[in-house]
């Protein structure tokens, strides 16, 4: 493998408390040295990173690539190109594929598809229950051995708390991480918008924040009871932040992420009946958004996920409640993080940590750091480049983003995955 010298970049590596200008030296797919040139190092390739930021590649905790099963929406090929262009070097795949990731065969298929797409660092998340139906446990251990990085029931409900308890006990026995998207199916009442002033005005079926906080409460209790390691995915409301904070104060050690769009958009930003804003959990209130931002700044929320859900045009063409929820969001991850920094919600160091160091730690991955010996998963970006979200720049097959047409600031120029240059801005 080639030896790469990244020179003159501003290196930000939160895992090692590093923020300085200098060089990164890579050989055999690994970082071999930072700042100090190794003796006798001859680079095969030199990347000039002057005025750019060099940081660990991003790790996304919640992604849908739509394969297997829905390749009309997106493919591993299309989305891995999008991910690479966004500085993302590791993707965790939600189990609600078709078929569901509930057998080792499907997990292996995903690894194969990832290899074929030339983007091997895609980790399947195993289904918690068979077919995600919420009734019977999946073969978690076999799934773990087949390469699954965690377990989750995606957005599907577990039918009762006894089943959830058993699943968590079993997961704990095998030291598996449960990624839990808290949502009480019944309270959610098949809603499509936050139960607030906007849903009331437009007569949209609505989801109260209690649907999330009650499910979160129950899962916290079961985490205590079962000793299962729990990570809460895509939390969306103020009281979830408070509850997670309290739980950690009492020594429970749960972690959480928030989807990037929840840190920027609220129900008030929704253009009436515009399906681009149809997302689950729904966009909530300004107070929720502010709490989520504070939770992130205070390390109560550890990570930001993209919650990438690419769709075909038909999925978003219809009356709002009938359209499919989700935003195509890999490519806006970095600029929207930088927007949080520009708005003084978090520091750049925190933003990078939330996208690399923290998810790596939660997943137990040997990644998210630029220390020597770590795989050279690296994102290099120019924080000053302005670019427009349009069909020339956009790589994902899903164009379903409410940010379409907007000017973003900050763009990835190079992405390295295990020392391989998988993206370079032309």
């Amino acid at each position: 493998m080639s030896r790469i010298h990244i020179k003159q970049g501003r290196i930000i590596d939160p895992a090692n408390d590093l923020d300085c200008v200098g060089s990164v030296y890579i050989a055999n797919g690994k970082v071999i040295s930072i700042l100090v040139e190794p003796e006798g190092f001859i680079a095969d390739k030199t990347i000039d990173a002057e005025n750019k930021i060099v940081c660990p590649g991003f790790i996304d905790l919640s992604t849908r690539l739509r394969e297997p099963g829905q390749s009309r929406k997106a493919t591993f090929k299309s989305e891995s190109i999008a991910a690479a262009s966004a500085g993302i070097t590791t993707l965790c795949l939600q189990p609600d594929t078709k078929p569901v990731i509930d057998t080792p065969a499907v997990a292996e298929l995903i690894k194969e598809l990832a290899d074929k797409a030339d983007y091997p660092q895609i980790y399947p998340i195993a289904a918690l229950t068979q077919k995600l139906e919420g009734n019977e446990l999946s073969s978690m251990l076999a799934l773990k051995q087949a390469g699954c990085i965690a377990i989750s029931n995606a957005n599907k409900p577990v039918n009762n708390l006894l089943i959830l308890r058993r699943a968590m006990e079993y997961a704990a026995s095998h030291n598996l991480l449960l990624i839990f998207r808290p949502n009480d199916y019944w309270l959610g009442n098949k809603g499509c918008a936050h139960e607030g002033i906007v849903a009331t005005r437009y007569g949209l079926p609505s989801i109260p924040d209690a649907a999330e906080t009650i499910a979160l409460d129950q899962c916290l209790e079961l985490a205590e009871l079962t000793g299962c390691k729990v990570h809460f995915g895509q939390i969306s409301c103020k009281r979830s932040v408070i509850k997670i904070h309290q739980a950690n104060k009492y020594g429970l050690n749960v972690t959480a992420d928030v989807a990037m769009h929840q840190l920027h958009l609220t129900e008030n930003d929704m253009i009436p009946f515009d399906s681009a804003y149809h997302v689950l959990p729904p966009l909530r209130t300004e107070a929720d958004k502010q709490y989520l931002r504070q939770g992130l700044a205070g390390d109560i929320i550890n990570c930001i996920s993209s919650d990438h859900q690419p769709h075909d045009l038909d999925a978003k063409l219809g009356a709002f409640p009938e359209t499919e929820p989700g935003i195509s969001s890999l490519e806006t991850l970095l600029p929207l993080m930088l927007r949080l920094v520009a708005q003084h919600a978090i520091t750049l160091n925190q933003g990078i940590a939330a996208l690399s160091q923290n998810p790596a730690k939660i997943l137990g991955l040997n990644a998210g750091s630029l220390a020597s010996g770590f795989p050279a998963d690296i994102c290099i970006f120019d924080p000053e480049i302005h670019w427009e979200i349009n069909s020339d720049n956009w790589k994902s097959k899903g164009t379903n983003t409410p940010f379409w047409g907007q000017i973003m600031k900050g763009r990835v120029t190079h992405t390295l995955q295990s020392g391989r240059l998988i993206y370079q801005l032309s």
Partner: protein
Amino acid sequence: MSNLQLTAEGKLKHFLTIEGLSKNILTEILDTAESFVGNADQQIKKVPLLRGKTIVNLFFENSTRTRTTFELAAKRLSADVLSMSIATSSTSKGESLLDTIRNLEAMFVDMFVVRHAISGAAHFIAQQTAPHISVINAGDGQHAHPTQAMLDMFTIRQFKKDFSNLRVAIIGDILHSRVARSQIQALNTLGVAEVRVIAPKTLLPAHVETLGVSVSHNLTEGLQDIDVIIMLRLQRERMTSALLPSESEYFKCFGLTESKLKIAKPDAIVMHPGPINRGVEIDSKVADGAQSVILKQVSNGIAVRMAIMSMAMQPQGVY
């Protein structure tokens, strides 16, 4: 939203919701409707305003009254009318809403009158349809039923003349009611003194007060000082979805009886968008009583819909 239904000159293009429409436009609708009211009594009921125009009533949800009055209104404007009930047939054939619209567009239609069970459907059609076509919302999900609201406003103005001092009570299932949402917006735009909603909490949307209403959970208290009483229809399925215990308990608490009616102002009028559930939300004696204007609402429906249809076709060179 308001931009979508208005032309650059601020004229009505589509009629999707009351939201975003000015008091002037609402008053213009009422005044125009006034000019059509006499027509019904004449030997020749027709006016030639929409001669040569084709209007398609697209009803994805069942309706008798609304569809009939729209049909009559279109015919009295001399338009060619086609009424289609697509309650379930199109979806069972797998045709999407958009394909249905595209097919009809290809038949040179000038206006769609749309009723659909999903909130936002009329809005979606207005966005997708060819620019020369007007879309009138005849009720979408729980969102809006603006022509019903306007015929109610027309009826209120007939009996009460002026909106500014009125206190209006809307009673019943506000949560699921597109009629109530549109009425509340229209009443507030026309400047009534108070809109009061009266219902148990299970039938009120969250943050209902942000719609510009005061709230009561008690009919006896809520009816005091009221000039206009609007009863809403209670669907049977509200009982099976645990929103209410029983019809009889509902009638006991929120049903409008002669004795309850006495609590309101003596000259209060009683309205209902129909169809009525006698003995569930309203007692027959009240529904058929002297203060009831329910049938007047129905006849006014034609004139008001004529007004809205002709105004929406104005940008296309009618008049």
